[in-house]
């Protein structure tokens, strides 16, 4: 049995290199408060291998999972190295125990579907839906006659359109689960193409698919495998579609890897709400994983807390103080991060750092190695350099399964009312942590009154297009709900008038004389944001309506 350190070295050098990684499985951190409330700790865990960069992910096979945990610990910058000896015996025993197990059994849950995408016998079809239909069509202890009608729920699901955003680690699971749960009309959006490193967990893809669009390949695979389901792929960005597109769906499920994309789809769905249109409320189910941790949550736009309300649930990327990097590095990651953040900028060996260019990574690796030598630090390797620079976070196939399963079941329950779902009136957030045995906690995240997305829905504001901006600004003071004395006004991409800071006030002051439509180019239906220091936490949004 090699020592832990040797194991780590082996893992990092062989695993990371061969599995060339990098799907962009997203890293989302769990709320630590809920956890610590119960556990009396302040710290669940801090950052993984990575220090900085985009949320790239490396996947590790289950056999390596335990080793990965120990790698995580020993490379964790916030873990004092003198703590490690205490952890070692434990981990070593565990990995010894698990070492002989073949990795396959861990994947049994998906082998059923991954084995072949061959033809399906029609005769097997009714049997496939037998048990699902028992759930969908029979009243249960939690169904009420007003909400649940067994005759119509399966039929309603047949007609329903559901949208899956992301066809990566979570997306593959979601598509498979939703198709096997009886959703017949599924759309999927993903702008990415398949990378070889995706194959170990994104099980709808094969080696021959590398380079093809994820959405397309995933859709074709599931369509072929599950008879009667129609999956429409969209190989593009979510931002390429407008509200009319999103309006056609009844439910939106997200398996995304970035906060930016989450914020965008959240804001879009919240903005789509029109109180006079029953169909404009689209439940949003969001899943996310990082290593052994994950979350599933349901958002009912404008009714329950939205993703923007929950923005602080995403723990910031673990970062090491710049001065530590510059003066007293203690860990190999510090040396790599120093090469990345400080040495690169100083020497600029290439005009622009390309994290996918081996030449660039080699440069950083060499720099980091020299620095590590200077401070007598061991452990800097090429693959660790790659991991730190690209912020590679371990993505674990089974965690994706757990979270995607939770998301899919919520979609099924929302679609049929066959059982109470996550989201309303109480709990809307389920956190899952497999870091320390298994721990889950489901709670209610409150809606924020001052949320810039759902706290203030844009109110209609009747204005004369011939008004000057000054007249508009003055009119805010008279509005009963706002009574803004010093309003600052912006449209997206256009600063109309800012009261502060002084230089911006001066620059935008000439706008006050201009008319709204002709002078400033504002359009009917355009949204403006209004802030006022008198309302420290709230901002206002208005939708201009020309009269």
């Amino acid at each position, binding site marked *: 049995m090699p020592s832990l350190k040797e194991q780590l070295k082996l893992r990092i050098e062989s695993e990371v290199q061969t599995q060339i990684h990098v799907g962009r499985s997203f890293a989302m951190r769990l709320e630590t408060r809920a956890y610590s409330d119960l556990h009396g700790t302040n710290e669940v865990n801090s950052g993984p291998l990575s220090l900085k960069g985009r949320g790239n992910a490396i996947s590790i096979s289950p056999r390596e999972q335990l080793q990965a945990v120990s790698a995580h610990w020993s490379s964790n910058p916030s873990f004092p190295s003198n703590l490690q000896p205490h952890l070692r015996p434990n981990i070593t025993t565990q990995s010894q125990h698990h070492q002989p197990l073949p990795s396959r059994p861990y994947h049994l849950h998906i082998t059923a579907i991954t084995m072949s995408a061959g033809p399906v016998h029609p005769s097997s079809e009714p049997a496939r839906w037998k048990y699902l239909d028992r759930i969908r069509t029979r009243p249960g202890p939690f169904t009420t006659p007003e909400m649940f009608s067994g005759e119509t729920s399966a039929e309603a699901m047949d007609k329903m359109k559901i949208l899956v955003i992301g066809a990566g680690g979570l997306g593959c699971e979601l598509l498979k689960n939703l198709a096997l749960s009886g959703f017949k009309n599924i759309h999927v959006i993903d702008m990415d193409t398949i990378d070889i490193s995706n194959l170990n967990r994104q099980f709808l893809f094969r080696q021959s698919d590398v380079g093809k669009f994820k959405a397309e390949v995933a859709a074709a695979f599931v369509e072929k495998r599950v008879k009667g389901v129609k999956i429409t792929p969209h190989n593009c960005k979510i931002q390429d579609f407008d509200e009319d597109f999103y309006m056609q769906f009844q439910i939106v499920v997200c398996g995304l890897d970035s906060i930016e994309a989450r914020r965008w789809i959240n804001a879009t769905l919240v903005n789509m709400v029109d109180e006079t249109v029953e169909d404009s409320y689209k439940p949003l189910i969001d899943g996310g994983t990082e290593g052994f941790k994950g979350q599933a949550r349901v958002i*009912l736009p404008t009714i329950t807390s939205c993703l923007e309300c929950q923005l602080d649930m995403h723990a910031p990327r673990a970062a090491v103080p710049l001065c530590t990097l510059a003066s007293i590095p203690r860990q190999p990651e510090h040396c790599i991060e120093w090469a990345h953040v400080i040495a690169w900028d100083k020497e600029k060996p290439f005009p622009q750092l390309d994290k996918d260019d081996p030449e660039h990574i080699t440069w950083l690796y060499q720099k980091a190695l020299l620095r590590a030598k200077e401070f007598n630090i061991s452990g800097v390797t090429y693959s660790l350099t790659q991991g730190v620079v690209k912020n590679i976070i371990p993505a674990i196939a089974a965690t994706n399964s757990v979270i995607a399963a939770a998301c899919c079941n919520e979609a099924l329950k929302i679609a049929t009312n066959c059982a109470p779902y996550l989201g309303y009136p109480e709990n809307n957030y389920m956190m899952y942590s497999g870091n320390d045995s298994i721990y889950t906690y489901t709670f209610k995240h409150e809606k924020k009154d001052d949320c810039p997305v759902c706290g203030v829905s844009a109110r209609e504001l009747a204005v004369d297009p011939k008004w000057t901006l000054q007249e508009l600004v003055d009119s805010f003071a008279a509005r009963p709900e706002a009574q803004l004395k010093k309003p600052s006004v912006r449209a997206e991409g256009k600063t109309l008038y800012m009261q502060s800071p002084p230089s911006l006030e001066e*620059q935008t002051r000439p706008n006050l004389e201009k008319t709204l439509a002709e002078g400033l180019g504002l359009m009917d239906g355009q949204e403006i944001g209004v802030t006022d220091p008198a309302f420290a936490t709230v901002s206002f949004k208005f939708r201009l309506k020309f009269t």
Partner: protein
Amino acid sequence: MLKIWSMKKEQQKAENSDGAAAGAAGGPKKKKVTAAQLRVQKDLSELSLGTTMRTDFPDPDNILSFILYIEPDEGMYKGGRFSFTFNITPNFPHEPPKVQCREKIYHPNIDLEGKVCLNILREDWKPVLNLNAVIVGLQFLFLEPNASDPLNKEAAEDLRSNREGFKRNVRSAMMGGSVKGEGFDRVAI
């Protein structure tokens, strides 16, 4: 399918809220104000710059990018004018603004490339912090340079070992002179 609409009606009834909010949508909806931009707008309208700071927006329509000038009126850096670029990403406030000093200055917590070692710009950033916190932090660096978190090790060592000598170095660097062979930008006004 879940009847969200009736739930919303119930919720409104329960809260007895003003049903007047958000009227019918008139025609296609136009460009939305994004949450990040609205947050920056709010932060800017609450900025208290005092007499020692001012901003400059090269493009007033792009509030995500601007320059902050600091002219300390006390401390060792009094009489200098220092400028910082602020670049705010669409991920704000999840991510901190990117701040860099534009001049080459002699300061223990700012390196020769303009990188700033300020905890709230990196490891201690939280979405509840705002731009005001950042500019207060920057101003503080000029009042209380901190030798224990050095980015410029030579400067930090000077400050620690010989405070008077450090002060002289600051003066000569601010005048555009050099310290131990390293030339600095003139920032004195």
